[in-house]
């Protein structure tokens, strides 16, 4: 398999060409659904959209059928209401989790105090308890707090746990702690000698250093809460208060799929933009999470 071909003046192994071909095929499988839904959202009818053989590429620009997009943009369907709700809830959750995650993560990494191990241990155990297990009691608590059917019923529990897939709960704290553990203790000592108190050290020295981890955490939490279905589905009843993933299912109609295809496309676009901008951070932060389970 070590034969080499001459391509563009470079010698390339035959095995590498074969491997690239296989990887391109896998890549096609990974993006095919997105190509398909974009193409389908621009077709006039459901039967045209699903005609076989499948049309992976959209029609030429002059033949674009924008009826379904118009319905979403003119507000005939409450799509942008859902998007606004999703944006609001995800922003609140992200800010909340980043703020308390950074503070608590720092304290668990750098301070000695009574009850530290117990508190941290409890939270790590809580990380294993997903919202799906506690939902009945959580619903009752939200009822007692009088916030059922408002966005608070979703954001409050999510800030302190709940939705990050695979790692519920203390996710933000865990990730920030991992970062602050990697900062040498000498830096804290130097700050203390210069007379900075622990709070000032945190705000003016540690937080600026943590910028990229904070950004990764924010991107991850935002994406996860943007995508959450379960909590919103249980906690919120009124259609006009729903988030995007739940709302999109509520505007489904049999045989007129163009609406939902267009809605799916518009819902994925923000994720795509965030991904293209934050790709480096996202990939790096996933690596951080995985370092030590």
């Amino acid at each position, binding site marked *: 398999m070590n034969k080499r071909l001459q391509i563009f003046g470079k010698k390339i192994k035959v095995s590498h060409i074969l491997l690239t071909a296989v990887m391109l095929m*896998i890549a096609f499988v990974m993006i095919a659904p997105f190509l398909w839904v974009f193409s389908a959202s621009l077709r006039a009818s459901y039967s045209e959209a699903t005609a076989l053989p499948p049309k992976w590429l959209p029609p030429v620009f002059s033949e674009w059928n924008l009826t379904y997009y118009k319905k979403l943009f003119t507000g005939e369907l409450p799509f942008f209401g859902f998007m606004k709700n999703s944006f609001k809830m995800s922003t609140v959750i992200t800010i909340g989790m980043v703020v308390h995650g950074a503070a608590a993560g720092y304290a668990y990494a750098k301070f000695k105090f009574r009850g530290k191990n117990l508190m941290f241990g409890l939270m790590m155990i809580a990380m294993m308890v997903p919202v799906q297990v506690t939902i009945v009691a959580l619903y009752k608590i939200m009822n007692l707090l009088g916030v059922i059917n408002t966005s608070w019923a979703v954001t409050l529990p999510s800030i302190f746990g709940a939705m990050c897939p695979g790692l519920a709960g203390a996710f933000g704290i865990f990730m920030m702690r991992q970062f602050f553990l990697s900062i040498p203790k000498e830096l804290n000592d130097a700050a203390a000698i210069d007379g900075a108190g622990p709070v000032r050290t945190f705000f003016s020295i540690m937080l600026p250093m943590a910028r990229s981890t904070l950004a990764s955490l924010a991107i991850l939490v935002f994406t996860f809460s943007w995508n959450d279905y379960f909590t919103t589905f249980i906690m919120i009843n009124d259609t006009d208060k729903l988030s995007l993933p739940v709302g999109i299912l509520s505007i489904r109609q049999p045989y007129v799929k163009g609406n939902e295809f267009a809605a799916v496309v518009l819902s994925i676009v923000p994720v795509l933009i965030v991904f293209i901008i934050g790709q480096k951070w996202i990939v790096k932060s996933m690596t951080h999470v995985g370092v030590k389970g």
Partner: protein
Amino acid sequence: MCGAAGAVKRGHIMKKKRTNRREKGAAYLFTLPSFFGFVVFVLIPVIWVVIISFQKYNVFTGASEFVGLKNYLSILNDPRSISALKNTLWYTLLCGIGNTGLGLVLAVLVDDILPAKVNVFFRSIYFFPSLVALTFVAIIWQEFFQTDAGVINYYLGLFGVSKVGWLNSQNMSKVAVLILDIWKNVGMSMLLILAGLQNVDKGLLEAAQIDGANAFQRFRRIIVPVASPQIFFVLIMNITGALRIYESILVLTGGGPGDSSRSLVMLVAEKGFTSFDYGAASALSILLLGLIGIVTLIQFAGSKWWVHYE
């Protein structure tokens, strides 16, 4: 001299004490808000679910009464719960193994065989589905899985495979959910395992190659042991994730046909919030929590003999 040194030392200790006190104040200021949140939104709910699982809730009066193990006995005697449990274990096993195994294969492919730029390109594409909400992609895959107009059956047909009723056959509905789950999550597994592969000493691999170890032997003897902490972490993550499987089934099959693809979480949501049987829903939740607990214990126990930490 000795006294002077002592005074200096005492001064240090006093200063240290003062910093410690300030540090403690800051520590509680920083940790108590999140800890309070945990108590209210995680700890109390867990305890409360346990309590509710021993109660019967009356929908009309809103009163609850203690009924002992009745809810647990009723779910154990309920064929729907048993089938949801079986389905969930099926998903857990196959999603866990499938996602982790294929994630490992993809991670090796995108590690460093090809030039760095090519690798980064493929990593991004493979990972992208992990960031998109299940509900959005499940809507698309539902079209792909259609028996007559579906893309998958069309391509299978080109190879002479007769039409598969992915969403309307009792045998295949779970497989459809599995395919969607792996497509969606394998990129995440890949990326996390990749972090482990970066620890593999490339010089060691070359030495092994010179000594005549083939690609599979290098994979089995060097790559897998070094990356085992990450592989194990990903396996546990996939398993606990699959135990909570919900949205993909809801959109693709609605749990059907019959109950053939329904998961435990779907049954929790249905019992709790459609038929308002809080007791049964909580008992099912505790069953789920038990399964997660077992997996977690295996994680702790298994990591000792399976994982080669350096």
